[in-house]
């Protein structure tokens, strides 16, 4: 029986995840109706929504990769510079920020009265309006997802052995050949899986489409679900739409993934690549590289800088000290965020403990796929339905006010697991395969192996993964609006409530505080616990 011990953590973690999802489904499953689904699919308006949902997700995902790829290929050469490492850490901000804040940041840069428009006003005397419509949706999705794609691609590039680089250079491969022969095979699988994830994120991207879409012309399935649930009070319809969404998202995501070659958990980066200088003192290349990096920064950092500047103008720091509401929100943000984040990394490690053995030792593909899938399942579930489902299931058993913190922690944890797995996965597998014989030779096994050997050796991936899970959870606005209360309020909720009461200055302070908090966490994790050598 001891032989099967390694299965336990993964199955246990999968089980916990599936329990939460099942509890949610349980609340809404009785509302599902095949007949209704058929009816809805035949509705022309719904058909146009479905078409647009797929269309904008595919394009957003494609553009995100299109931008992230050259950026990654360029940045990989400069990873030894502190400044570049700092920029990469800051890049996470757009990924983890609450969506509403990200949208405001975009508008502060690209909006009609945004920085770019102001420049245009100065130069050609006219304001620019390009952000409300499909353009805005795409720009926003790129803003949110490029950093994630960037880090994933950099991670794969990191797995190319230095020796291969030297061989390539010695053989005088030109840039295209380098890419085709050396870099592409290493990143191919990871790009596909990352695309699938970004696709799913854009598929359910409710707030962006609503605010930047400009009107009902651009609507996605999630909006229709929201409307059915909240305004029409039609759970049947919401569930039917939800099922359609889940099926579509899974089919398309799996389609994208089917192009991957071998089943592996794909790499993520710690920032420590040692590429020998490919080009020496070639100023033309250097200029080109700097240009690309600046474009990258403009994509994911400039909006945030615009937002910060705008918030600084509006806020009034004296009020920060006496503002108990703000401090209370800060407190809950930290408590709930850290709890979800730590739990998420814990569950991810448990899943990986089993997955790595399945992959490395037994090569049992189907079970590995199922376990990894359970971690990623959350990506295709409509968030509103998930939260509503849990609410409906539990309200008869528990007092919602009392279990609210646990529900918030649970759902946020679930939402961040796919990313923890991605960030930790390849590192864990790499370490397991490199040191497996040493572990066997000295009988280093079980919990002691995980705690004393594997985790310390994965220190920096764990640090980043914790930072991302924690900050992602802190940025949630969806779950907290359903389950929060006057006592339990996080910063995003505080910000949104302030906005809803004319209190722009309070909102600005909340935004600044949240940015300071999340940036600190990411910095401490990546720059301090980051690379040793």
């Amino acid at each position: 029986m001891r032989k099967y011990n390694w299965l336990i953590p993964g199955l246990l973690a999968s089980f916990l995840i599936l329990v939460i999802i099942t509890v949610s489904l349980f609340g809404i499953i009785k509302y599902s109706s095949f007949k209704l689904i058929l009816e809805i699919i035949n509705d022309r308006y719904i058909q146009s929504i479905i078409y647009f949902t797929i269309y904008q997700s595919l394009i957003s995902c494609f553009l995100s990769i299109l931008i992230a790829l050259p950026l990654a290929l360029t940045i990989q050469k400069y990873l030894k510079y502190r400044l570049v490492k700092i920029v990469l850490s800051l890049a996470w901000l757009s990924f983890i920020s609450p969506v509403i804040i990200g949208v405001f940041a975009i508008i502060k840069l690209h909006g009609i009265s945004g920085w770019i428009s102001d420049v245009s006003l100065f130069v050609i005397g006219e304001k620019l309006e390009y952000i409300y419509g499909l353009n805005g949706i795409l720009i926003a999705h790129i803003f949110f997802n490029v950093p994630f794609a960037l880090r994933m691609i950099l991670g794969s590039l990191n797995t190319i052995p230095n020796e291969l680089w030297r061989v390539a250079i010695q053989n005088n491969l030109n840039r295209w050949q380098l890419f085709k022969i050396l870099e592409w095979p290493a990143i191919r699988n990871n790009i596909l899986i990352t695309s699938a994830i970004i696709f799913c994120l854009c598929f359910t991207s409710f707030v962006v489409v609503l605010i930047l879409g400009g009107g009902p012309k651009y609507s996605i399935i999630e909006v229709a679900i929201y409307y059915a649930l909240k305004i029409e009070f039609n759970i049947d319809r919401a569930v039917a739409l939800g099922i359609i969404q889940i099926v579509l998202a899974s089919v398309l995501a799996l389609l994208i993934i089917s192009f991957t070659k071998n089943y592996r958990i794909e790499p993520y980066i710690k920032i420590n690549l040692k590429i020998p200088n490919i080009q020496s003192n070639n100023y033309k290349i250097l200029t080109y590289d700097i240009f690309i990096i600046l474009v990258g920064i403009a994509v994911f950092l400039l909006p945030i800088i615009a937002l910060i500047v705008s918030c600084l103008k509006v806020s009034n720091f004296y009020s920060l000290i006496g503002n108990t509401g703000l401090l209370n929100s800060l407190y809950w943000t930290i408590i709930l965020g850290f709890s979800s984040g730590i739990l998420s990394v814990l569950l991810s490690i448990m899943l990986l403990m089993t997955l790595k053995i399945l992959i490395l030792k037994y090569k049992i593909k189907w079970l590995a796929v199922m376990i990894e899938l359970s971690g990623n399942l959350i990506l295709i579930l409509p968030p509103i339905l998930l939260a509503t489902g849990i609410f409906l299931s539990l309200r008869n058993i528990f007092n919602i006010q009392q279990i609210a913190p646990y529900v918030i922690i649970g759902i946020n944890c679930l939402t961040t697991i796919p990313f923890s797995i991605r960030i930790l996965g390849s590192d864990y597998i790499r370490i397991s395969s490199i040191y497996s014989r040493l572990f066997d030779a000295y009988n280093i096994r079980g919990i002691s192996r995980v705690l004393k050997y594997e985790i310390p050796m994965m220190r920096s991936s764990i640090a980043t993964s914790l930072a991302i899970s924690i900050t992602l959870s802190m940025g949630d606005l969806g779950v907290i609006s359903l389950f929060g209360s006057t006592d339990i309020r996080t910063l995003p909720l505080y910000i949104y409530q302030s906005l809803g009461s004319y209190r722009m200055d309070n909102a600005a302070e909340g935004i600044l505080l949240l940015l300071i908090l999340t940036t600190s966490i990411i910095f401490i994790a990546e720059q301090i616990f980051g690379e040793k050598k």
Partner: protein
Amino acid sequence: MIKIQNISVNLDAFKTNYSLNVDNGEWIGIIGQSGSGKSTLLNLIAGFIYAESGSIRINSIEINSIHPSERPVSCLFQENNLFPHLSVYENIAIGISPSLKLNAGEKKQIQDTLDYLNLSDKSNSDIGILSGGERQRVAIGRIVLSNKNILLLDEPFSQLDPNLRIEMLNLIRKIRDEKQLTIIMVLHTPIEAINYVDRFIQIKNGRINRSIKPTEYSLEIS
């Protein structure tokens, strides 16, 4: 005395079938083309792979189904012999106690080993700052400490420069003499091993082709 009979495991290209007898104290070099199954033989003896059929007996005890940590075998690999998050001291200490809980006697043993290998001044060092040769020496220190009498070497010095390689082989020989080790070694450059091994065995397609004396081998390759 190691007695290997028809040890078989399925590799991608072929199925192995090794039969081999090794006397106590012998130093055997394994030669053969890459992909012929040299490392596989070592992995089988060490226990990192379990044979599908056949038997391995060490001093008449069947060890085929015994866990690697319980076999009287220690290994030195080409690289990644050391844990990067542990210091030199701790890496060596694993040889006695993987949980790193040591009593006074054990601590003395570790210190002696450090002295023996001229590593005392680097005792608390981070592995990262050591040179390739120093790292292998630390690994050798652990092996010495773990006091097992069969040593398997899998191209352990191929990353080092030629002079250092000779130095390392000399060190191995010194330890072998003092502790009466039985050594089975896969070496990248078998020529260098001529002065050290008692005999070579050649592996081809998962089978042991022949056994050959060093002098014969040096004649063959000249």
